[in-house]
């Protein structure tokens, strides 16, 4: 069995002392920021990217991945205990989880969330391991036209699955691609949109964009809202759910894992969409006479979304590792992390860097195991952390952002870029423009231009090439179908409902 030998290679990498240590650091940091509202995985990974220069590439990626799925665990803890989802992907967990906590069953909810997450994590790790190699092989047959169409499909799917206005999301993607143009054009050497600023000829650093919008912009919005955080300190209770709870949740965990794995692969998907959809599915399946009703502390309402968000977080690595195309903002940062270490993300990673590829996959399972073992006993400590008021937290986040971005190039200009994007992020938030699609466009933009250029060069300028190649044509047809479906009034209404659960 190839799968077993490959996973063997992976575990031999992931289980070295150093890599276990970095997985642990990543998981702990992830849980920490998952618990703390007001700072998410995107900003954290952006902050830590520069410090990963000093690490070997595998360790760096293992740590950053740990932050992402660790955040899913941490987010559920606060959602259940204080009705305050630390991460957006845990919003629905708060609905039933907090009600369980109020009935004195916080422990069971937390335990079930952790167990569900672990089962989902295990299953989706296997899924990544099984599907990544054949997909990478298929991806090697992709020509430039196919890649271009695939990115179009990816970006459109990201819009469909994003929440908020579709038109604005499309505009934000285009804006992101446009911002990605700034800097020297690789083909002609012309410095585009650099306004005679030498620093801009290298382009705008995506770390700075991500940190500015998701780190500083987020702080500005939080400062405006002021603080409304109450810590609900009740007894956590017994952590192990009862046999009855298990029997109740087993189906929910299985469905959450399946749905989450599927949605994680889709562009724009990942943890957030996975948890929302699986909660809706579970609620629908349970029907009106669920006991207790959904929203009143039904354990299935905790088990399903928590399994789903973890599965989704895991499988969103599939498009990144096989196609080199990031499906969400966190994965876009992982692209950056790989390029920092001179690894070109794409189908060749698996053959060129098998140690890295399988090591990263194996580390996901190791990390999930750590999270279950570590988090449950540490819950008391995480709750204590919640008592840190935001007025103490945000100056620290600012310091880390500023030092982090400065060290990328030892450059004052980069610090100014995050200041500017902080303000831009604030304006976006006030105008209800979702920033995640912008970051996705920003990362994909240069790749899109390059592939468009190559495809048209090969076809001698004939745009029909995008329809003549079967793979490319399929992608484009799918994109158009998505847009049509999106325009249907019934779907539009449904989509609004799904995201207005909070």
């Amino acid at each position, binding site marked *: 069995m190839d799968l077993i030998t490959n996973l063997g290679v992976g575990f031999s990498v992931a289980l070295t002392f150093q890599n276990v240590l970095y997985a642990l650091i990543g998981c702990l940091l992830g849980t920490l920021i998952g618990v703390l509202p007001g700072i998410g995985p995107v900003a954290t990974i952006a902050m830590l990217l520069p*410090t990963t220069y000093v690490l070997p590439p595998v360790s760096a990626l293992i740590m950053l991945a740990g932050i992402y799925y660790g955040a899913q665990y941490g987010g559920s803890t606060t959602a259940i205990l204080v009705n305050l989802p630390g991460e957006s992907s845990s919003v629905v967990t708060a609905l039933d989880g907090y009600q369980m906590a109020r009935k004195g069953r916080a422990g069971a909810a937390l335990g079930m969330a952790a167990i569900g997450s672990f089962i989902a994590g295990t299953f989706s790790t296997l899924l990544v391991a099984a599907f990544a190699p054949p997909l990478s092989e298929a991806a090697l047959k992709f020509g430039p036209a196919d890649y271009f169409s695939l990115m179009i499909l990816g970006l459109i799917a990201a819009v469909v699955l994003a929440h908020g206005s579709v038109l604005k999301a499309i505009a934000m993607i285009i804006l992101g691609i446009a911002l990605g*143009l700034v800097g020297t054009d690789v083909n002609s050497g012309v410095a585009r949109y650099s306004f005679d600023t030498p620093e801009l000829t290298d382009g705008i650093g995506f770390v700075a964009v991500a940190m500015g919008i998701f780190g500083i912009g987020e702080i500005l919005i939080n400062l405006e809202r002021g603080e409304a955080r109450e810590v609900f300190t009740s007894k956590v209770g017994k952590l192990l759910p009862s046999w009855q709870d298990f029997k109740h949740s087993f189906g929910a965990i299985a469905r959450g894992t399946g749905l989450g794995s599927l949605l994680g692969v889709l562009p724009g998907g990942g943890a957030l969409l996975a948890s929302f959809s699986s909660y809706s599915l579970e609620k629908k399946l349970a029907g009106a006479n669920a006991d207790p009703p959904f929203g009143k502390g039904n354990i299935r309402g905790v088990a399903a979304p928590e399994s789903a968000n973890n599965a989704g977080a895991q499988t969103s690595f599939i498009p990144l590792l096989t196609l080199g195309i990031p499906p969400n903002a966190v994965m876009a940062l992982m692209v950056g992390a790989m390029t920092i270490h001179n690894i070109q993300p794409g189908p060749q990673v698996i053959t060129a860097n098998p140690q890295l590829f399988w090591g990263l996959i194996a580390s996901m399972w190791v990390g999930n195991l750590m999270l279950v073992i570590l988090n449950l006993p540490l819950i008391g400590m995480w709750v204590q952390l919640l008592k840190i008021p935001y007025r103490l937290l945000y100056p620290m986040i600012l310091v880390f952002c500023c030092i982090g971005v400065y060290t990328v190039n030892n450059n004052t200009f980069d610090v100014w870029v995050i200041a500017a994007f902080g303000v831009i992020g604030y304006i976006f938030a006030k105008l209800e423009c979702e920033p995640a699609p912008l970051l996705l466009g920003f990362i994909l933009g240069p790749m899109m231009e390059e592939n468009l250029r190559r495809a*048209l060069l090969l076809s001698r*300028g004939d745009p029909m090439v995008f329809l003549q190649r079967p793979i490319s044509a399929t992608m484009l047809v799918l994109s158009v179908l998505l847009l049509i479906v999106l325009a249907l009034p019934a779907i539009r209404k449904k989509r609004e409902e799904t995201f207005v659960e909070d």
Partner: protein
Amino acid sequence: MNQFLKNKDLLAGLMFIAIGLIFFVGAYNYSMGTAARMGPGYFPRILGGLLVFMGILVAGVGLKNQAKAAASEGIGWTWTPVVLVTVAVILFGLALPRLGMVAAVIVLIALSGFAAHDKNYRELALIAVAMCVFCAAVFIWGLNLQMKLWPWS
């Protein structure tokens, strides 16, 4: 006029149109080339045009819902924290290479700390000291990043 300033979609649309125009017009500085041999101006011009188009659609939706927007409480910009934090970050960037990390961190925390509703000066001083020690330990001594610690070092 004031009524239109409450309209988020309209403002967002205008923003997209303005940025799209910058890219579209700016693309004329670079050669277009042909589809088969694209110059550096080809892709930017398409993008700029698309952005303007999307901006018009977004603004249009905004205008359609103008009545609803006019009845809302408005967007509610609060610029004080924005200005404080932004100036703090800009000064940090200036201070770090010249005055070293300690001074830069103190400036950043002192200025940005004013932005909180419930600021507490003693706490801020404590954080500033703690962050200086932590960052020196981790970034300068631990990770060996190239940064001055003091103005004279």
